[in-house]
């Protein structure tokens, strides 16, 4: 059964920046007394916020499906709600996701991230008039979408990727490319060629140097590198 937790004090080092009052960002040392029921890092920072209501972060579902509470935790991107607080070395160092402009504290501006997602046309394109009923797809064809459609757009992967840090405006990034392959792999989509054209560029796809940080940090255990590899294979096979 569940491990019993006890009330305990936890030390934090947190990136703080409020452009309304701070000239520059700084790291704040702060500790908080946790209740026995506080198990996840998110529980801990929600508890911290009851002491200092100015600490700012995004959160919503608290169960790892909405993708709001991605942050850099002891140097590694992850979701606060899926991280056991007691598993972390102290002081727990929290920073905003790297590589995106910081709005305030742990909240980053995700405009560039979503721009890349939108750039791959994230929707099924099928210009054949739809049948009265569902389009058919075999269980095996549907299986191809597993490991792709589950992405929660938390941006842990793209903001862990050096290629995305250097070229966030030109490189689609792991999340966007995973989505690109999700539509290529869908038997209902008719635009595979256009999708490949859209990525045929020195930056958009080929900036991936298979460093695999994306795979390492994905809180949903997805594998963008593998999806990127499959897109590259398709490009090669259509070139010959």
């Amino acid at each position, binding site marked *: 059964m569940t491990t019993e937790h006890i009330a305990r004090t936890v030390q934090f080092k947190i990136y703080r920046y409020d452009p309304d009052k701070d000239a520059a960002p700084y790291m704040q040392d702060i500790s908080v007394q946790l209740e026995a029921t506080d198990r996840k890092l998110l529980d801990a920072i929600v508890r911290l916020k009851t002491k200092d*209501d100015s600490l700012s972060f995004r959160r919503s*579902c608290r169960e790892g499906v909405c993708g*709001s509470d991605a942050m850099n935790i002891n140097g590694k991107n992850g979701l606060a709600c899926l991280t056991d607080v007691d598993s972390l070395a102290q002081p727990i160092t929290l920073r905003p996701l790297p590589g995106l402009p910081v709005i305030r504290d742990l909240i980053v501006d995700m405009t560039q991230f979503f721009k890349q997602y939108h750039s791959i046309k994230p929707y099924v394109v099928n210009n054949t008039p739809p049948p009265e009923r569902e389009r*058919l797809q075999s*269980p095996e064809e*549907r299986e191809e979408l597993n490991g792709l*459609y589950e992405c929660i757009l938390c941006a842990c992967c793209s903001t862990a990727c050096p290629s995305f840090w250097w070229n966030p405006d030109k490189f689609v990034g792991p999340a966007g490319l995973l989505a690109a392959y999700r539509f290529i792999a869908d038997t209902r989509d008719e635009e595979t060629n256009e999708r490949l054209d859209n990525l045929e560029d020195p930056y958009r796809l080929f900036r991936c140097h298979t460093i695999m940080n994306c795979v390492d940090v994905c809180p949903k255990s997805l594998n963008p590198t593998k999806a990127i590899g499959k897109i590259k294979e398709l490009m090669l096979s259509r070139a010959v």
Partner: protein
Amino acid sequence: MKVAKRTFDAVIVGAGGAGMRAAVTLAESGLKTAVISKVFPTRSHTVAAQGGVSASLGNSEPDHWTWHMYDTVKGSDWLGDQDAIEFMCKQAPQVVVELEHYGMPFDRLDNGKIYQRPFGGHMSNFGEKPVRRACAAADRTGHAMLHALYQRNVRANTQFFVEWLALDLLRAPDGRVLGVLAMEMETGEITAFQAKATLFATGGAGRIYYSSTNAFVNTGDGVGMAARAGVPLEDMEFWQFHPTGVAGAGVLITEGVRGEGGILRNSDGERFMERYAPNAKDLASRDVVSRAMVTEINEGRGCGPNKDYVLLDITHLDPATIMQRLPGIHEIAIQFAGVDPIKAPIPVVPTCHYQMGGIPTNYHGEVVVDGASVAGFYAAGECACASVHGANRLGTNSLLDLLVFGKSSGESMVEFIRKEPAALQEIPQSEIDKSLARVDRLNTQTNGADVHETRLSMQRTMQNHAGVFRFKDMLQQGVDKILDIEKQVAQTEIKDKSQVWNTARIEALELDNLIEVAKATIISANARTESRGAHVRDDAPDTPEHPNGRDDANWLKHSLWHREGNRLDYKPVKLQPLTVESIALKTRAY
């Protein structure tokens, strides 16, 4: 004070399933539409839905929309409006197929059709035996659906205002709705969004309770805004407690687990649902299962050191089936219960899950007050009460509700907007000032109440005084306590005064909405002196004269709570469907 103004044909508040389904219809019709959401669209709580969306597609075995309708009316304990229920069940196959065409990655049967699983209360042939009606994408149906709807909106070029918080509804002196006032979180700037038609699709308010399957953001904002703008709230005493929230954490374990063969057991290892619902067993309606669980716990047959939960057992299922059909549950059990469900059962307790009541509408999505629709105002999804769920919602009927009424309200709005004159009415300054006053108070309040503490005392009060079983004395005390807490809510104080992404301010403004929902709930519950569906009281027990404690002679009617003076009045249930015969009143048994 003057605020910036933006004008549209339509404004939708909320980018969950309901808001985004309506947005598809509006954007594809070419009207200028704004969708405002306090979170990025795919972070709306529809994303957490697991089990499925119902439609009588009959992909695995015969099914019919009239059977679906029968189950829904019975599930609602006859409090649902039968015209709206007919409309929803008849439309279900079409809207689900449309969603598939949008790209929704449903699981598939060998013949290539959408996979369907059994679910609580879904029966064939008017209550005879379980039927496979829940269309599913593994146990991530809501995620798959919300992303598919967002993607369709990207294709339709819908204009989103992401991370904007709607503050209040703006009305003309004649009652017409003119739009909303909203705050951009990043800058704290306030703008009036003016439109010919406004849709609320703001989701549920499960956060009025201490233990809930709902997200932090489910704070009933639309319902609170409507109440402040003088719109009564319908059937707010009816809250669904889902049988299987992870004990301690509140995170949901879908009913689809029982649909796939999961079994509830007490401390004796007994499959106790066989005693409470000999026919449907573990797949009886949610209120029935939740009460059975609480009864087992109260009678000393709970599990664990404190005997305060029961076990959900799937250890007898094939691990391959678990990984294929319930991968998300496998992950949740490990993350939040600390057990691998392939090897050990999951500790579960009934947990607040769904708000059956809400802003009163008809099945066109028009908000209806005193028998007439409010010009320019629409509501859909969990914040609305159409009323298809009545006193208890069937699992998978909410995602369906989002699709059907998202679409129908979108269509009604298109029709309404096309008939409206081009010129927009002036927004009265007093309307704007009223709303700004709420923000200004927070900027200046000193010596006030702590937001977190105040919210916590509201949540504990609701949990203890208006839970799975309700007690006459506790309800009355609960009303007094909530009215006391309301006074503190009016004086909350925040320390953070920044204009940039001020989450303390957002939480304080959300609490203004939560308290409206809590008042409506407990006052309506206190007044309804019968037991029906999810509302069960000790002073309305099961008797031969009133089976299950239901009192149709006096209480077959919808409650309407008015914020002003906490006044209640009632309106009749629509027992007449659109084309078929009325489903006659009957005692509910599974």
